[in-house]
């Protein structure tokens, strides 16, 4: 198995891994698990002023999956409803040189991400404090 430098670095440090501390602004979560595909991901994001301001992940999977999750969490801040997701399976695969037979895992990640972004959009369109 070949791993890029970037995968090695992200795997070794796992930035944004864990939970967001309770604090200012609502937190939403999105999760997807397909154990047969070898991936289980969970993202959390804090919203403020209609945008994601902080994000975290937890993941079970291969090194590429964990690195992709860390990268995703790093790219989430700044996202706001109505804009395209900051990453998708294709862009992650390219950036991290993920081998073709692992693309299924990135689709699980995409599912978890979309679930997170859907919740975030719902929260924004809901009446504040609702």
């Amino acid at each position: 198995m070949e791993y890029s430098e970037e995968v090695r670095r992200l795997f070794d440090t796992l930035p944004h891994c864990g939970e967001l501390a309770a604090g200012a602004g609502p937190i939403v979560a999105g999760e997807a698990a397909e154990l047969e595909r070898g991936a289980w991901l969970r993202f959390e994001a804090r919203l403020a002023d209609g945008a994601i301001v902080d994000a975290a992940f937890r993941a079970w999977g291969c090194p590429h999956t964990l690195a992709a999750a860390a990268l995703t969490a790093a790219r989430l801040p700044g996202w706001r409803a109505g804009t395209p997701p900051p990453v998708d399976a294709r862009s992650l695969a390219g950036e991290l040189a993920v081998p073709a037979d692992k693309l299924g895992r990135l689709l699980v990640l995409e599912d978890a991400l979309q679930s997170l972004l859907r919740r975030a959009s719902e929260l924004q369109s809901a009446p504040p404090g609702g």
Partner: protein
Amino acid sequence: MNTAAGRPVYLDYAASAPLEPRVAELMCACLRDPALQANPSAVHRPGRAAAAVVAQARARVAALIGAGPEAIVFTSGATESVNLAVLGTVRAAPAGRGHVVTARTEHRAGLEACRELERAGHPVTWLRPDAGGRISAAQVGAALRPDTALVSLMHANNELGVLTDLVAIGRACAERDVPLHVDAAQSAGRVPLDVRESGVALLSFCAHKLGGPKGIGALYLRRRPRPALRPLLFGGGQEGGLRPGTLATPLIAGFGLACEIAVGEIVKEEPRVRALRERLWAGLQPAAPVWRNGAAEPSVPGILNVCFPGIEGESLLFALDGQLAATSGSACSSASGEPSPVLTAIGRSELAAQASLRLSLGRHTTAAEVDAAAALLIAAVQRLRRAAPPGAIERIA
């Protein structure tokens, strides 16, 4: 954390043991000696000098298993020995006597040789191990049929280290006059082994698992009664026609010395390595939950197979990469990523199999290495568990 020399802790002796330094020196002397370069089959003086080296080594290899030198056929390794034994015996059996008894937990050399026989129309009985990974003499006895040509079982399982009771199984086979082939690649040189006690008809092993070189193995062939064998290779008459090809003097010399060293050290090494293995197992307990795969005893001393439930195998290997060399339960002999059939045969789930590691110790393993390995494993497992979504440890097992 690495060893002093900056190299990973090597706990993959079951895949290949490092060459014994004395064996390396003998081989280097042999490789460089102008008087030992000839073909050992040549009748001239340099040929006879090489043949004398081969003869001495053959006696040493035979002595490891309590056999005489004339019972040893040199091969390229355990894979070839196992294939020669399994395919050779069954192909030489009379028509109508082609049934084979083997187990689902054999090494792939035995497994695939038996599958090849199955493809050729031979009936094969595939025994299932108990939860500890063992095949019993009663199972073997019950599987024997009037048309059974061969029972082929391993002595020590290469993933779990559990030992087969050769004496009891040998007796069950002898009662029915069925030759017993034993794949002893993982036990030869690691536990005492005497073909006279178990009455095995054929026994396979190789040098590189016991401190000798890669590329050489042996098949023991009982003299009386001598099992009929059809060769796999045809050519010059070397090895009594059973295994033609120029004999590799330096490899054979190295194999011989490695066997002699093993014979001399086994009494001291076996308990030492066994104690280190239990020290490692104890040292891993802070990573609980951690499970032991396969029965703890009887076993070869150096193999510990553990499952860290909730851990993804590839990430565990990657976390250890460059620090600890071991074999994953998902990649027993290659990078295939398939879960180990041995672990699933003893009842582990696919995910638990992938969360398993075979840690195998040997002659140069130290207590410090074992402690370092335990610390590395605990750190990696805890880190990966913390990274996993809540509930993963429970669900993924």
